[in-house]
């Protein structure tokens, strides 16, 4: 395989995950409307999940089926409104949320916001010169914010990859790998457990399942770049093709 072809394969990986983190960020961070559902169920999204499928009927393949099915439904009358109700119920309130989408809820025994784990997340953001726009009034460790953080870092790594600054590419990729391991993957499976109890979910329980599958897969993908090796080797790998 030619080096540039191998680079292209990495580019696909990096580009795809940027798209997906951006997509998940919008899915969990924004009240749904026709526009978002259109992108979520469109060909680009289906391709993006499809490319991650390794065998027939695996998680990602099923996700594509789910999205295609959703596409036939979401244009019907009132569907978007129902999904919006589901979003409000699950993520906005006004009551207690069945699966609160904040890391600290799962990392403090009492299920509270603004805990020490929130500070850890904030420290991570700050290390990359980032903060929530709503700081300090919003909890930094909401699902949407953590996904946005990942999408920012994914964007950086792709950008540096394009400009052939591989050291920086690796720096950002390693940051994402660590953030996945120390944060997102630490709590989203438990978030998913609670989400699984939600009856009659139209979109979000399913997408939470897809998200957790994706996060695990992405982390493995990142790990494959670095497996058992120092950063130097990793760069060589990237430069030399994988």
């Amino acid at each position, binding site marked *: 395989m030619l080096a540039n072809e191998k680079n*292209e*394969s990495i*580019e*696909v990986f990096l*580009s*795809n995950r*940027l*798209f997906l983190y*951006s*997509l998940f*960020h*919008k899915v969990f*961070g*924004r009240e749904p409307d026709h526009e978002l559902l259109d*992108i979520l169920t469109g060909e*680009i999204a289906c*391709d993006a999940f*499809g*490319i991650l*499928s*390794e065998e*027939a009927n695996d998680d990602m393949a099923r996700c594509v089926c789910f999205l295609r099915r959703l596409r036939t439904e979401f244009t019907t009358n009132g569907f978007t409104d129902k999904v*919006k*109700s589901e979003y*409000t*119920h699950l993520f906005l*309130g006004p*009551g*207690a949320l*069945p699966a609160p989408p904040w890391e600290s*809820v799962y990392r403090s025994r009492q299920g*509270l*916001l*603004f805990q*020490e784990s929130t*500070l*850890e997340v*904030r*420290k991570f953001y*700050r*290390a*990359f*010169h*980032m*903060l*929530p*726009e*709503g700081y300090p*009034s*919003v909890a930094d460790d909401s699902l*949407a*914010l953590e996904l*946005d953080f990942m999408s*920012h870092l994914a964007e950086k790594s792709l950008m540096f990859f394009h400009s052939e600054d591989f*050291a*920086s590419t690796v*720096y950002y990729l*390693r940051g994402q790998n660590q953030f996945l391991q*120390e944060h997102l993957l630490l709590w989203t499976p438990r978030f998913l457990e609670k989400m699984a109890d*939600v009856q009659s979910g139209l979109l979000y329980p399913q997408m939470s399942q897809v998200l957790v599958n994706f996060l695990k897969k992405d982390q493995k993908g990142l790990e494959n770049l670095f497996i058992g090796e120092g950063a130097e080797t990793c760069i060589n790998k990237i430069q030399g093709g994988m």
Partner: protein
Amino acid sequence: MAKPISRRDFLKGSAAGIAALAGLSLLGTQKVTETPATSTAPSTSPTSPTTSTEPGIEAINTEYTPVVDPEEGGKWVAAACWHNCGGRCMNKVMVKDGVVVRQKTDDTHEDSFAYPQQRGCVRGKAQQQQCFGADRLKYPMKRKSWSPEAANGELRGIDEWERISWDEAISYVADQFKIIKEKYGNQAFLLGNYGSRYSFPPLLAFGGHTSVTDSTSYGTYLMNLNTTIGVGIFDDGNGNDRYDMLNADTILLHAANPAWSSPGTPAYLFQQAKEAGVKFITIDPMYSASAQALDAVWIPVRSGTDTALFLGVAYEMLRLDEEDGNTVDWDFLNKYTVGFDAEHKPADLRSDVNFRDYLEGTYDNTPKTAAWASNICGTPVEKITYLARELGKTKNVWMIHNYAAARNHGAENLPQIFMTIACMGGHMGKPGNCATNGFEANAGNSGPRLVSSGGSGLPFLDNPIDGIIPGPQVWEACLTGKYRYCGDYYNTQCEAGEDRTCDIHCIVHDDSAYLQTGPNQARGIEAHRKMDFVVSKAQFLTTQAKYSDIILPITTQWERPGNLYNSNREFLYCASQVIEPLFEAKSDQEINILIMEALGIDPAVAYPISEKQAFFNQIAGSTVINDAHMDYEPLVTITQEDIEGWGVEGEPQKGHISLQEFVDNGGWQVERKKDDDFGFIGYTAYINDPEANPLGSPSGKFEITCQSKADLLNSFGFSQKTYEPYPEYIVPELGYETTFVDGVIGGEKGEYPYLLFNPHYLRRSHSVFNNCPWLRETWPNPVFLNASDAKEKGISDGDTVRIYTKYGQVLRKACCLESMVPGQVGLPHGAWVNVDEATGIDHGGSDNYLLGNDIYGMGVSGYNNNNCNFEKYNGPELDDDVNVDKRIIEL
């Protein structure tokens, strides 16, 4: 890859998708953004990439160490504990970058009786959970099916919700206010708080609103007592300084449980008295936590029958006095009271009656003997005799009540008989003796304040609408348009009753939880469903928020500039801002200003100054007793630099403590010494010279037979009976007697044969804190049943029990007690209602879901002597509260 697609095509698609997503707008609260490296990277973080935007690989290995030292960079802040327990204890939190990482209480000085630390209780320690609960209301919300065109009110409480912007929320509120005012006039607004006449500036400035008056915690002690029988307003302020506790032989706690209700300094003081050898007696349906802690002699009593008990005590005191000549303080009665007997007739008395003749049975051939009393109140005769001895004149006695016995149907004469007993024993106006309330921060510690907050400088706004509905009638009035006015007894005083009408179309819930904490809750829910518009400020999906159309998220005190709290007389608490407002919550002042602006009213009529200026004004105006102990002088030293630093207006002044120290310390406490000049004995002036210092009663004396009391009671018109001037036993229209079919004690038991009362419970302060995880775990909120009663029905500890009245039904788990009077059911006060719409059964344990609109006597909300029944529940077992998620809207 499952699908053949060229990498080029894929990348093109991916890029297009990313661009499309970037085009989707997203609210700021869900976005992270890049920050300038120098301004936000904490200096304490050694590992963050610093100046270079694209750091080298070297930095990576030591990057983002996950453990954040909780205390590094943290700062202790005195944080508010502001709830309606009235405790005002010290709470301090270590805050680090907006996160509370540690909490403690008062450690500003060593603890001693002279200079006690103002320690908080378990609820105060859970305050952080109340501020940082994941279930906090974060955004303005609108009920989905409500619109200005169609209220669809029947869906209140079961509807879906949608998030709206503050602009939309304020517009909806202001537009509804304008429309409703134009269509129905200002009387159509009901401010749904328990004493709401002057509390909501936007409507006060907009022409006023109809109000509620409820007897709340005070019960029949809101009955103009100062101008009738002669004790202080609310029977407040006429006890003794805490040092005098040690002069008492006995402290009587009547229906008072400070271990649960005032567990800070007041409970500590009583504990100290116990350790110093003072004997405690409690009168209570339960052998309470306080009784246990203080090793008290328990006088068990059926709830709502306390007047009968005290009549029995009075009779026994006379009997004992005849035996020993040394029980009744005749000198006291002679000099300081009127109406005890025929020889001391008050000048204004229109009938020839007196207390002693009533007591001895002259009018009804029924002497109010211990046996007579025992039949009603259930207290064994020998315990009544014991109490009579203990309250005799040879003993030094503090008689402390906490109003709970006055929160009963038929308790109108309780304040007068309590006072009468105190007079018979001579327990007022001398060391070691007092008779007063023991309530909130001042429990066990009366006397003029030694240190006080200044005023905020915010103006008082009048309410031009004089429609004021008694609490038990308010929800019915929303449904029927009828009520009986009897003054604003919560805020000012009772007045003669008068039938009135109203036409309520809009309920506003501002700063209280009255749909949860007031009676007749089930009908209250119906009333809410009838309205054109209901709006609530809320910190969570509280009960009143649940049944609203628009909910406005409110900040906690931790998110506001600060406030001073007058605690007990020695302590002025200064709480400062802990964190920035969370999510989209705003303060009352901010919200009210927005509403006023939208109504076209100049907000300056209510808010001429900022919240910070109001805080500063309180501090600048704070005073402390001077060194000569004669007068008061400014407490806090304020410099020109302070004023400029705070960005407020003010004048420099000299005081006892610098502004910064005052704020850092969390206020100021006057250090006491034994035999200092700050001692206080209630009624001293009156006792020393009754002619020169008369009481507020018509005779200027304690009126044991009181014409003005009878006249007032007879003017209300809630009960079809004639009230007498003396403290007779009132057979309540709802109470112990009505647990029998024909209302005769000892007869056949009726459909609702148990007496239901609502003990205040340490999980909550009224309804506040009910959702805090620590407290839910520690305080399971069962129903208290007498063990024998439970056994008869085959109920054991932990069984799910259905408690029901003619108004509603509630599920709770049983806690079977030997230490509670048989026939009583104790359902803790304040649990958030959670109605199963299919069955109508409340699973939350709401006390007021079982209460109706019964109103008698002075219009008292009778919380403690309702009739109920209970049974082992056949349906699914109730889960423990700790395992039940806080209030979730079912989709």
